[in-house]
């Protein structure tokens, strides 16, 4: 029979999964669909899509990233506290795996807010300026390159993150 704490855990886990699916789904959309498609589009079409499509997608992307990571750490620290604050270094595979996945996922979230969004915000502002008749700043290509590099990093990093998250409860390696 489920206890009160189990309902608390499942509410956190469901929220973590929901936000995580939204985040990683949008990450794969950007990398597998949008970036290659934009390379094939003419500049006026691309510029029209940036404030309408990219801006909206980036809103859900960065919000789902922060919710995923925050709720994940709330779940971890709740479980750690309810378990009686054991030393994570000697408390079994679940702690190793969840700390590894959680830290790598936190790196991804920091990339979203600290690099991808920071540079994409400049790209969006510059594109809106171009649409209003202002000249494009010369640094625009560099901003895009930095954001895409961090985004590629996150695509690769999502593979071990998902492994450690799934392995925490399903593959006790040591």
């Amino acid at each position, binding site marked *: 029979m489920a206890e009160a704490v189990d309902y608390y855990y499942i509410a956190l886990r469901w929220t973590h999964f929901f936000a995580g699916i939204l985040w990683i789904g949008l990450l794969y959309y950007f990398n597998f669909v949008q970036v290659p498609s934009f390379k094939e589009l003419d500049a006026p079409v691309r510029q029209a899509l940036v404030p309408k499509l990219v801006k909206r997608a980036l809103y859900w992307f960065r919000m789902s990233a922060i919710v995923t990571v925050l709720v994940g750490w709330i779940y971890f620290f709740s479980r750690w506290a309810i378990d009686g604050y054991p030393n994570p270094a000697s408390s079994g595979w679940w702690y190793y795996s969840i*700390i590894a996945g959680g830290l790598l996922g936190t790196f991804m979230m920091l990339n979203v807010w600290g690099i991808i969004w920071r540079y994409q915000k400049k790209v969006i502002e510059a594109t809106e300026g171009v649409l209003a008749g202002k000249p494009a700043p010369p640094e625009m290509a560099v901003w895009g*390159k930095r954001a895409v590099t961090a985004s590629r990093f996150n695509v690769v990093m999502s593979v071990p993150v998902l492994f450690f998250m799934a392995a925490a409860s399903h593959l006790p390696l040591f």
Partner: protein
Amino acid sequence: MAWSFEFKMGLVWAVLITVLMVVALWLTKAVGNVAPVLIPVLVFFGFVAWVNRVK
């Protein structure tokens, strides 16, 4: 996904940090505290410093 500069460098840094995380986990078990996880954390900050200088 083409093997662009962005893809190659993203791959290199992500694999490096993942490998260091596995090494840190092993060290965590060996030394009995979670201090070794600082290794990949520090390398990640190296990535952040590097990517902000990409031209």
